């Protein structure tokens, strides 16, 4: 897995949606809703994460004629990527926290 992935805000949004349910199977439309990203932004990110080894992609096991719809592609964080994703998101959260939050925390301590 390539841990040196550039964590932009859209990538962080996708990772946050995946980390929220790390064992669940996520599909494009659901990730668009949970990340708030349009399809044109989401799919390149999913492809980049998959190629970097952060995501496993598998096809839904259905018979399209019985289900009445084509099979979907499902994404899930790889076991190796989950702790790295959590750590990178925590670091990003720390970096983007407003300055007064640090002050309040220190004052409380």
């Amino acid at each position, binding site marked *: 897995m390539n841990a040196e992935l550039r964590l932009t805000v859209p990538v962080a949004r996708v990772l946050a949606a995946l980390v929220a349910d790390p064992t669940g199977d996520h599909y494009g439309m659901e990730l668009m809703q949970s990340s708030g990203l*349009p399809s044109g932004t989401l799919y390149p990110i999913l492809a980049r994460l998959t190629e970097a080894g952060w995501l496993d992609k598998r096809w839904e096991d259905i018979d399209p004629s019985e289900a009445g*719809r084509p099979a979907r592609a499902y994404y899930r964080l790889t076991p190796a990527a989950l702790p790295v994703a959590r750590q990178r998101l925590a670091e990003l959260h720390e970096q983007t926290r407003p300055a007064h939050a640090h002050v309040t925390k220190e004052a409380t301590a």
Partner: protein
Amino acid sequence: MISRLCHGLLARAARRWPVDLRDAMLAEWQAELHVLPTTAQRLRYAASLATSRPHREGAVVIRPHRDVAHGLLWLLSITVLPAVYLPLALNWTSSTDPIMIVWQTWVAAGSVVAAAVLGIVCGSLTTGVTQSIKPMAVARWTTGIAYVAILAYYVVEGSLDGALLTDMTYWALSAAALCTLAAWVARAGWMSLSWAIVVIAVPVSFWFANLHNGLSDFSALGMEPFFGGEHLPAFTFAVGKQELLHVIIFLFVYAHVLVLRHRAVPVPVVEAPKEVAA
């Protein structure tokens, strides 16, 4: 109809993806599109994919015949279209009566939009041009060739004089400089700024094209009575209906889309022979 349009947009989007991912991505998008409940959602989904770029560029297929055809189409578009449009547009821009003014206002606004749209369409259809001409030189070639074509039109029309020649020369120089600057800025990754420069280039070069004309002094050319004596709307109308303005918008948008759509052909990596490498 909408369904076909959406599938067409998805197919177009897939063609921009790397070959190894193309079929899988298209199948995935079609599966998602299938379950979207409303037409608006389906259109938004497909349009967003069609207007975005993949995470990495697909392999560039070198097709010299296609590039030559694109080059010829580009040459025809920047020479024939202005030469045909300029006299045609004169028929509806020269009349000044109150009823015609209302009509002309709408047509002028429509022409500005249509010129930009046509530039985008032509730029998208002739992307092979930048395989023959360097992207940074596209603006210079486009304005240079259009400059010759427009001057030729004025010669045939019999209206070319020293003043017009000076104005058009200043126009071509300013257009080439500003559009090349926009191309450099785009190459640096600042897309929005590059488009802002193109937008600024239109009035600046248009001003140069009218140096010996009242428009460069911000004159409304006597149109105020049609706009309740107001100068600004009258001046906007006087500028907006200028057929040369529409040609300029078309040329600048066309050239800039070509720059933005350029994809470099990867240089093949030649490995050194083992004995030499050793």
